[in-house]
């Protein structure tokens, strides 16, 4: 009996603690642990991936570490370190809402239905869906995929659009990028659809890049944002100020150049429209 009472008391105490932790705002949580925990990808070059030297790096990660982190450290008045956890399209929203991570910084498209569950930062990159095919393939874009076997990444916005706009295509969805690419390389599928920038990244990293082609007009609009827990506007403000400061000071473009410039991991020049779009998101101080 005595042991039962102790057990119950311990259980109640733990439960109480958990409830208290839930009420904590994200900024309080970060300040208490001196850690910003982000959810990011391991196989989406050059946004977030593990490179040849086994370092977990990328454009999205750099934006967090070089643009957002300084603003966060200044706001909280202490050194904050970044801890990375892997997130996938299926796990990122649960990771965020269960407090396992504080910020999703990878290749997540901001959509209206996702905004029902989480909040988003400013758009930090904009792209659209295209197709990766073997060079010389008859597939030239979404108009030419009827009856073809098409791979997509499960949980992506592209798969959804293919299902709606080309219902006769045989859509095969894979949980991750390497499996989808393997299926394309072996002929299980005739094309792989994903955001254009990611396909370009995949092509550049392939053993023989010249054998592959990224084809088609953008058939979707994919604005990437960083996702945060819903209703935590103080933390969201810090993230947005970090991004706005970086765009205004030119730091964003330095980071962009490092990854997408002529000498970067994946040359992908910033169009004047995109640059203007980024700058117009910056509101005055």
């Amino acid at each position: 009996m005595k042991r039962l009472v102790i057990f119950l008391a311990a259980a109640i105490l733990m439960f109480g603690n958990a409830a208290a932790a839930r009420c904590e705002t994200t900024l309080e949580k970060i300040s208490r642990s001196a850690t910003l925990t982000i959810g990011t990808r391991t196989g989406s070059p050059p946004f977030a991936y593990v490179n040849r030297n086994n370092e977990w790096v990328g454009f999205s990660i750099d934006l967090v570490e070089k643009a957002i982190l300084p603003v966060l450290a200044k706001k909280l008045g202490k050194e904050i370190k970044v801890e990375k956890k892997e997130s996938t399209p299926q796990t990122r929203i649960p990771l965020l809402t269960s407090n396992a991570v504080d910020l999703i910084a990878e290749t997540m498209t901001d959509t209206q239905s996702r905004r029902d569950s989480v909040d988003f930062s400013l758009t930090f990159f904009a792209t659209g869906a295209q197709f990766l095919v073997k060079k010389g393939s008859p597939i030239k874009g979404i108009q030419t995929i009827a009856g073809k076997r098409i791979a997509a990444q499960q949980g992506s916005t592209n798969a959804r659009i293919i299902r709606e706009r080309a219902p006769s295509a045989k859509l095969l969805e894979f949980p991750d990028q390497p499996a989808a690419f393997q299926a394309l390389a072996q002929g299980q599928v005739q094309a792989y659809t994903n955001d254009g920038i990611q396909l370009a990244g995949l092509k550049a990293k392939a053993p023989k890049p010249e054998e592959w082609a990224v084809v088609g007009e953008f058939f979707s609009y994919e604005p990437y944002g960083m996702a945060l827990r819903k209703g935590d506007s103080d933390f969201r403000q810090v993230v947005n100020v970090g991004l706005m400061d970086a765009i205004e000071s030119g730091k964003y473009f330095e980071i962009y150049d490092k990854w997408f410039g002529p000498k970067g991991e994946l040359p992908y020049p910033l169009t004047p429209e995109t640059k203007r779009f980024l700058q117009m998101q910056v509101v005055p101080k």
Partner: protein
Amino acid sequence: MSYKFDWTVLWSGQSGGWLLDGLSTTVEISFLAWWLAVLLGIGAGALRTAPVAPLRWAATFYVEFFRNVPLLVWMFFWYFAAPPLLPDGMREWLFDHGAEFWAGLCALGVYHGARFSEVMRAGIQAIPKTQFEAALSTGLTVTQTYRLVILPIALRLIIPPATNESLNLLKNSSVALTIGVAELTFQTRQIETYTAKAFEALAAGTVIYLLLCLTIAALMARVERRCAIPGMIVRGGVEGF
């Protein structure tokens, strides 16, 4: 937690249809793989106790090779590594007709066959050696002894562990989503993609798996009761189900 539950996503829109599609694919692939696994299991299990050494070796090789490699690896093997061994025309035909389903079926069936065979072997070895000798002494051949005496008793003995194995097979069918088989877990993710409501979708999947498994357990308990040889197997634990 600022998350707002919205259970209506499960029956509004296409979600209900997706869950049903996923359920039927899960049942289909599990049912077919189960038969494959049971046949392989009975065969290999019996061979592992056979009085001929090379047959025992072959069966042991099959069991140890297939049960000691993760199922996920077998999925990739049957989907990515096996098709290039086929002739071109056949391969293209297969790719156009749900190659991922058949690859998933092979992976599940062959992997669980190896595990079933161990259950089978345990069942056979639980039968006293004298029973085998008695059957032989009545003039039956070794094959007839297995077919008419040993296997019928062993199959009854192994129903509880075989139920366990069958439930595992059903749940492991979810691994097939890695090669694009649109089964139940895949469809719960699909709902998440469209509605961004992960908790609701996962909860629906959980409840469906639970109901499926309880149904199978109840069915197997019924089979166990109906097939019991009076006076041979103690049935105490089963009555209460």
